[in-house]
């Protein structure tokens, strides 16, 4: 097991060596460094989902308890995927190792390990591909960049493919357009053929398979948690907002990340959403059977991702809704819009999403029938349907972290900024090379926001934290807004480490603060039930 201890102090961690090892990469064996990798998954989680080779094993031990024919399984797995995924085949062949991606990866920038250069991380698998699937590799071997698949190579793949957050920043700079995330996705699929996942991914997968959400919240618990938020909203606004669960015939099914039903500051996002829906009289319902926008199955294999996500459409069909509104979630967006259509085709039992308040057709969601809440809210604001008191957010100087999947994958750049500027007076951008499509990952995406790999997370998040530090020092920024639940879980830890005092929030928390609701009392508290400065509060 990896050591759980605290990472080195920031002063130490920021001394990054970029000097490569003296030997070539093939001759430099992988070293499992505590704090840089996660616990291997336990048998019970794999068993829960019917995945192969469930067993308890530890990455730090020599014996990974592999099946005797493990090599055959991996090679057959590669063969099948070369046939199935044209992209994978192309990406295995076309890299010219120009190195344009090398210094674009947050893990390489924050850690200095050459095998975290995307070109080399991919080369770990490409070398195996060459050995078994190309003529030059079969004949020339190492001279052609090929190598045998050994247990050490397999362990190296595991170590580095769970040190990639599938953020795709490197892909943006690749002259060939190689999507490194897809290589990591396939790499993880291959590892999963041998039961080699990590605990923090498989636990949520097993929970979601059982309950429909990563946290494993049961239906009455979901309601209890939302009831608590409704109670807080009443304290803050004097208004008792209403909501419904599993209501057949509702126009819209709302599905946010389950982290927003428990964790801080995610629960304040849910509160903002509940207030917004109340104010516009939205005809929507929750499903207590499919209450998860996130999908850690995506970080496991396509098949597992499908198993988890089918619940969303299945519930939409059962409840007879017209379309689906998604919460502030990151990878939900990439999956729903870039994978779901290919898996199942557009769901014919749903309608093309139309805002019941403004009449806007969300033509971009014709296929998936699912709209991101920032698209929905930005449209409401654009049509003058909401009234705000921006001064309630005046104590905040805000910057916005573009989440990799919503921004780089889906192009949701303007909507969150438009909302923030509509509800806040003080908004500042981080440097251009760190936002929008060039955004830096939080360092904990793709299921890597565990507890035991904290050094990896702090290193991977260093470039993002550095950009936040710049706006803090230059403009006095004190709030880091985002639209992703992993960000809301991971960034507070990252900020505590690199930029103590920097707070983190979701965009709809800011919306809830500023939203002027019909019949509300004079606001003296923010959504965290803390006094609003200058609004009759104590400060």
């Amino acid at each position: 097991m990896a050591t759980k201890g605290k990472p080195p102090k920031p002063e130490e961690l920021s001394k990054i060596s970029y000097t490569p090892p003296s030997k070539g990469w093939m001759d430099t064996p992988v070293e499992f460094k505590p704090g840089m990798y996660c616990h291997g998954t336990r048998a019970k989680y794999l068993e829960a989902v019917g995945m192969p080779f469930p067993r308890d094993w530890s990455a730090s031990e020599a014996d990974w308890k592999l099946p005797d024919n493990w090599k055959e399984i991996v090679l057959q797995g590669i063969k099948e995927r070369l046939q199935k995924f044209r992209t994978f085949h192309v990406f295995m062949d076309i890299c010219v190792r120009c190195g344009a991606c090398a210094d674009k990866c947050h893990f390489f920038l924050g850690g200095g390990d050459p095998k975290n250069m995307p070109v080399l991380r991919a080369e770990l698998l490409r070398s195996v591909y060459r050995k078994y699937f190309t003529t030059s590799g079969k004949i020339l071997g190492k001279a052609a960049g090929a190598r045998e698949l050994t247990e050490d190579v397999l362990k190296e793949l595991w170590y580095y493919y769970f040190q990639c957050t599938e953020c795709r920043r490197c892909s943006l700079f690749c002259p060939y357009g190689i999507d490194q995330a897809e290589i990591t996705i396939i790499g993880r699929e291959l590892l999963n053929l041998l039961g080699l996942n990590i605990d923090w991914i498989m636990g949520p997968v097993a929970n979601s398979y059982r309950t429909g959400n990563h946290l494993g919240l049961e239906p009455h618990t979901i309601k209890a948690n939302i009831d608590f938020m409704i109670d807080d909203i009443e304290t803050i606004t004097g208004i008792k907002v209403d909501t419904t669960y599993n209501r057949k015939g509702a126009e819209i099914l709302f599905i946010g990340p389950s982290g927003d039903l428990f964790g801080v500051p995610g629960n304040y996002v849910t509160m903002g959403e509940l207030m917004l829906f109340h104010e516009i009289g939205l005809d929507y319902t929750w499903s207590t059977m499919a209450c998860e926008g996130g999908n850690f199955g995506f970080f496991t294999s396509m098949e597992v991702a499908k198993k988890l996500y089918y619940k969303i459409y299945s519930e939409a069909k059962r409840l007879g809704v017209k379309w689906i509104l998604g919460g502030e979630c990151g990878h939900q967006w990439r999956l729903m819009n870039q994978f779901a259509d290919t898996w199942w085709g557009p769901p014919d039992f749903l309608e093309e999403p139309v805002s019941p308040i403004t009449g806007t057709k969300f033509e971009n969601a014709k296929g998936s029938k699912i709209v991101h809440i920032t698209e929905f809210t930005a449209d409401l604001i654009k049509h003058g349907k909401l009234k705000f008191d921006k001064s309630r957010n005046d104590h905040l100087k805000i910057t916005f972290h573009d989440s990799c999947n919503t921004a780089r994958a889906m192009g949701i750049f303007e909507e969150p900024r438009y909302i923030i500027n509509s509800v806040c007076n003080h908004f500042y951008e981080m440097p251009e090379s760190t936002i929008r499509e060039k955004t830096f990952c939080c360092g904990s995406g793709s299921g890597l926001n565990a507890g035991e790999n904290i050094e990896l997370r702090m290193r991977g998040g260093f470039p993002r934290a550095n950009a936040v530090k710049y706006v803090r020092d230059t403009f006095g920024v004190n709030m880091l807004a985002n639209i992703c639940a992993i960000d809301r879980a991971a960034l507070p830890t990252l900020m505590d480490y690199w930029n103590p005092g920097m707070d983190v929030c979701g965009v709809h928390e800011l919306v809830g603060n500023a939203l002027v609701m019909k019949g509300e009392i004079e606001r003296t508290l923010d959504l965290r039930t803390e006094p609003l400065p200058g609004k009759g509060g104590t400060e």
Partner: protein
Amino acid sequence: MPIVEYGDLKINVDDEGYLINFDDWNEQTACALAEREGIEELTLEKLEILKFVRQFYKEFNFFPIFDAVCKNLHQPHNCIAEQFASPLLTWKLAGLPKPDEFIVTVLEHKQTPG
């Protein structure tokens, strides 16, 4: 199986100090568990939190939202952090069964999956 002794009281815990039998818990048991964790006194505020967490777990099979605990008990914000070193310690002293590694990450590292 380790046994924690506290006055005349003897209770069964696991190697990490989690109570074996959920129903063994009472205020005395809580004091014994707390002493094992180096907490000298379980004040009224602390005991209230433990009882609330325990009741919520019984009913909802999960840890309550942190803010909800404080608000329901009319205690200050961050009452769990102020009264106990971590939510995980609260879990343990409330006599809840040894949590899954998943819950440990949620409570100890304040992480939730996206």
